[in-house]
């Protein structure tokens, strides 16, 4: 039964695939992506990276959905979120996914960074990928911070106020940082507009291409790094080296005697 479905599907899909392949080369590309050998021992550890990617994709998706109702003005921001939470079908779900996956993302991205650090996966030739990863974690942190200021509720507002005050202590340019983030010298409509543009346009626009480069470099160098993936080969190498050393030692011994 299954083999018949398989055969029938292949009969339909194969010509389409061939047609697309000739024009775009996408099938070869997919095969290249899908059939790449990856280390077996790191399998579950390497899901941290894909989990991060999945959660960021959830952020993009639910973020775009929330914008169907969210209004970034001081008069309406809070009410529009209240509306999402009370009147919109699946409103609590979409906003809940955005909120909770952001929280879990902070944990998972941290674990991903720790995994990369402790397995030494940032070593040559993967330095650039580590640097991009650090930029990504910075962007995600700022996104998390600006995100809850958008609610324009007490919690988000006061956190943003504290953030701006910390920014105003920046050596030499503190006053400029504060007015830049406020959009004036007081908190008001311009402040919310700035938080909005940073959270919704600026940082996601920076995040998306960097994720692309992160994945490209990962593919270029492969998901390798930790020594425990090579333990068998390392053991073989050490064994062979010891045998050679011993042979050399024996030779030297005979030389001195002779």
């Amino acid at each position, binding site marked *: 039964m299954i083999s018949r479905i398989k055969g029938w599907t292949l009969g339909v899909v194969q010509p389409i695939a061939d047609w697309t392949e000739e024009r775009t080369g996408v099938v070869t590309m997919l095969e290249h992506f899908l059939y790449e050998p990856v280390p077996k021992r790191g399998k579950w550890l390497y899901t941290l990276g894909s989990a991060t990617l999945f959660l960021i994709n959830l952020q993009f998706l639910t973020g775009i959905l929330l914008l169907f109702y969210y209004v970034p003005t*001081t008069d309406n921001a809070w009410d529009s979120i209240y509306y999402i939470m009370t009147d919109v079908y699946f409103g609590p779900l979409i906003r809940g996914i955005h909120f909770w996956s952001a929280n879990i993302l902070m944990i998972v991205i941290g674990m991903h960074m720790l995994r990369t650090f402790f397995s030494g996966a940032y070593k040559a030739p993967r330095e650039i990928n580590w640097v991009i990863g650090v930029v990504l974690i910075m962007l995600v942190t700022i996104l998390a911070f600006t995100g809850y200021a958008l609610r324009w509720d007490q919690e988000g507002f*006061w956190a943003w*106020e*504290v953030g*701006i*005050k*910390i920014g*105003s202590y920046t050596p030499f340019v503190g*006053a*400029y940082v*504060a*007015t*830049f983030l*406020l*959009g*004036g*010298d*007081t*908190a*008001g*409509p*311009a*402040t919310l*507009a700035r938080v909005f543009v940073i959270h919704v346009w600026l940082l996601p626009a920076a995040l998306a291409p960097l994720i692309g480069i992160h994945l490209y470099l990962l593919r270029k160098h492969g998901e390798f790094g930790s020594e425990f993936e090579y333990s068998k080969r390392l053991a073989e190498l050490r064994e062979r080296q010891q045998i050679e050393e011993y042979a050399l030692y024996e030779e030297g011994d005979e030389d001195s005697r002779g």
Partner: protein
Amino acid sequence: MAELQKDPVTRGQFLFMGVVGSLVGAVMTIPPVVFVLNPTIKTNLLGQSDIPDDWLELGSVFEIPSGEPKVYRVEFPQEQTYNGGGPLLGEDSMIQAVLVSWKEGEIPSILENGDQGSFSTSEIEELTQDLNVMSNHCAHLGCPVRWFPDRGEFLCPCHGGIYTINGGLIGGPPPQGLYKYAYEVREDGAIYVKHEFTNGEPWVV
């Protein structure tokens, strides 16, 4: 893949790329940066404010109790982003809590005489000196400070900054005392306040 073709760059092409490239780069970077920094330039370099430079009535000196501050809520008109045009883009406002107390919490003797009439210039001066008109935002990171009657101090809930009734710093991480508003006392004892601070710039508020 076709083989790479590396033609030599002529002097003209090099110059063209340098000059036109710089121009394109300048148009694409300088106006956007200045555009985004508009409020920074206006506030920091030109000294403009979102709050109009007007005196707003706060209350009367007779309302300020002894030994504790009185909290006033002042609605400062605010011109930010939309500058008050048309019925939809109305002028915004920002409501701030202003803390007013007497120096050391003691009501000045002028008021204890039951003098309810108008004050003379010297009396106004004395009353002005005896008043503290403070912002309720902690000088550390801007959290709202609170008066604790049993301790006789202002406390900040965020990082534990402690201030006296005069707004002076007692302890905790804040770098200075509470921010003080510019204020004046009129002849009938009314206190007027302006969105201007005499000791440091609090930002945000």
